[in-house]
């Protein structure tokens, strides 16, 4: 390989959203960077903070999210490829979100994507630092005990100091 690039790089991420679709990017990037030997810190703020809860059940809704494909994770291939035109009004039916969430989870599973919980476990194994935002905890009434043991707590200055030494910083 000749020149090996082995100096430790650092990735600093902010995870600000807690829905199923938005939970994936920070955990995928964090585990990939961790696998490449990078030092990784993820700062969970606002709705992203819920991803630190012991039991995570992130949901997703196509409501107000017109780019989300509505496809069925079962049946013949032609049927699975149909992008169903669901009217926004129909999305108000009680239980619609859990159906949409169930369908997306099944699709991810069928395609061989790890669950968000599995990715989080891998991130912990790869020594990714998971930092919960103290301010959001105060606002939404969360306690440190509500979260997994592997997480730390910090504020904006904690993240900024960490990110100031980072090679890559992203807000998700």
């Amino acid at each position, binding site marked *: 390989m000749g020149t090996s*690039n*082995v100096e430790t790089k650092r990735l600093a991420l902010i995870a600000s959203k807690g829905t199923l679709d938005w939970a994936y990017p920070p955990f995928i990037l964090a585990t990939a960077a*961790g*696998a490449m030997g990078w030092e990784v810190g993820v700062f969970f703020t606002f709705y992203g903070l819920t991803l630190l809860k012991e039991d995570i059940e992130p949901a997703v809704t196509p409501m107000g999210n017109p780019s989300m494909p509505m496809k069925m994770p079962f049946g013949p291939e032609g049927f699975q490829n149909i992008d169903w035109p669901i009217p926004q009004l129909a999305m108000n039916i009680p239980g619609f979100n859990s159906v949409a969430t169930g369908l997306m989870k099944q699709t991810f599973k069928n395609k061989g994507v*790890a669950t968000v919980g599995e990715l989080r476990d891998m991130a912990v194994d790869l020594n990714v630092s998971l930092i919960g935002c103290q301010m959001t905890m105060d606002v939404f009434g969360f306690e440190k005990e509500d979260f997994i043991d592997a997480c730390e707590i910090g504020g904006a200055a904690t993240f900024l100091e960490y990110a100031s030494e980072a090679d890559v910083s992203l807000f998700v």
Partner: protein
Amino acid sequence: MSIEHDVNKEVDCSGMLCPMPIVLTTKAIKEVDIGEVIKVISTDAGSPPDMKAWARQTGHELLEYVNDETVFTFYIRRAN
């Protein structure tokens, strides 16, 4: 097609998508000694560029990469 390598460990990531192949590769490379070779099988179409980037970033040596249509096989030597 493939050069003979003395493989010390084999990882099958068939059916798994990003980032599983590189995460499992990382786990496997830590389980062999420096200089030893692992074989990684992946069906993730994103694996070829990802595995090369992983090797550049970690310094491990990607000895060979075999593309058999939808199956990708990587031979990697632990370098550090």
